[in-house]
């Protein structure tokens, strides 16, 4: 690993930018993700910033099961993200489809559409759990040889 790569990995771990995508969720996980940005939880102290565009993001935070209508859009958003990219499935539905498993318009968990690096269960996942998920993801990134 070159010094430059080390520097990039170090920088990336200090400021992971996230983009949030709702693929068919009930809103509960979404407001908990937003909650994590607000004063009580304040993820910005870890350098995490929520970005509007997937092109600026390192981590895609997905909530909800994948609905047939959103599937294509989820894949597009994932493809627009620059490498290396990580996906976090937040909430039981995003992990496995949860209570919506078997509904005709639901494909299942997020991993049915795109590769997932971190699963955060809970209905909804608590903000602490979401922050813990991102921190664990970062240690994974830090430990990796080439940053992926």
């Amino acid at each position, binding site marked *: 690993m070159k010094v430059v790569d080390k520097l990039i990995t170090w920088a990336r771990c200090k400021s992971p930018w996230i983009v949030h995508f709702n693929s*068919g969720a009930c809103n*509960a996980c979404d407001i908990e993700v937003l909650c994590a940005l*607000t004063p*009580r939880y304040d993820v910005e102290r870890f350098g995490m910033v*929520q970005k509007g565009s997937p092109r600026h993001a390192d981590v895609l935070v997905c909530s909800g099961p994948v*609905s047939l209508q959103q599937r294509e859009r989820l894949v597009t958003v994932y493809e627009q993200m620059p490498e290396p990219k990580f996906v976090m499935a937040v909430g039981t539905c995003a992990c496995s489809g949860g209570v919506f498993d078997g*509904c005709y318009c639901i494909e299942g968990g997020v991993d049915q559409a795109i590769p997932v690096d971190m699963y955060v269960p809970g209905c909804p996942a608590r903000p602490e759990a979401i922050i813990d998920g991102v921190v664990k993801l970062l240690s994974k990134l830090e430990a990796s040889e080439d940053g992926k």
Partner: protein
Amino acid sequence: MSKIMVPLGPQHPALEEPESFNLLLEGERVAASQVCIGYNHRGMEKAAESRTYLQNVYLLERICGICSHSHSTCYVQTVEDLAGVEVPQRALYIRALIGELERIHSHMLWLGIAGHEIGFMTLFMYAWKDREIVMDILEMLTGNRINYGMNTLGGVRRDVTPEMADKIREAVGQLQERTEYYSRVILGEETVYLRLSGVGKLSKADALRFDTTGPVLRASGVGRDVRRDDPNGIYPNLDFQVITDDHEDVYGRTVVRVKELLESYKIIRQILDQLPDGPLTVKVPNRIPAGECISRYEAPRGEDIHYTRSNGTDKPDRVKVRAPTLANSAAIAHMLDGGYLADVPIVIAAIDPCFSCTDRMVRVTDANSGQAQSMDWESLRRYSAQWYRKQGMDFSRIPLR
């Protein structure tokens, strides 16, 4: 002037859900708009037909995470009516208590989002910080911050102890103080008034014509509230006002929501004072006699309607849900037309949309050349905040404590 078509959504970072709008622009103004929803359609009504009545309580609670208690209450009311059981008074009081706490959490959340959409970030952070007070109370009562799982067929699953009641009283006192402060900032501050008044106009006649509901309707001067007009549970025993406002715009919707918060505190105090003793649940049979029932509930966003038809088995024949946002969706296009592009985020946010209930994104196309340019919510929101700052509306100048 050339017309530009702007597609907005469905990936949508500032708010929570997917939806999409097609806006036809003439310069800065919206000439025509089209609402596309359905991104969150999961097929729950069909799924409800293959699950038992009790399983459906937990499925339908997850129609929407913000008004989850509204949906489950509305649904259990239909089933209890069909089964012909009388729910214990204490359970009804606890249901109403959770319902009002949910309204507080939802209106606080909205207040924050509204602040975010107009570029008043301090309000966003303040409102969400204070919202944690009510989230703690809900967690204490139900064990979960959202999707409480408090309702069951025939009653509620957890009790409220006197110690909990004291904590709720204390929290309500704190919240009241904070809300009164917001009410001074929002209702007394000229910048907020200038930014919001006249935006997203919806006249009384139009609000009725489009069958809108909830705070959107009440901000257009129509005092319609299911809690008073067609009360269920214990609402007839409570003394509260139905808040209306005659501004007919986003400012009016803000006033209504802030004042409704104060009403909710009043209701909660009454509930705690009146809370009767007694059992929490009554037995409801697994098989529900054949029949049909429609139930209404005033959710934070408006009137929620559930229709259940039973056929004598342990599974419903049909469950129909009409979420409040669907009723308000038809009016969005009308409210956007003729307004500025910079007002689009706040107008949409002002109906407090919940498309997971109903089932959201913005794209921009040049009607002459047919060129489409995508605009995400965040960039539109930033554009909006900058556009108004140029007009002299800067929220950073508002003195806050």
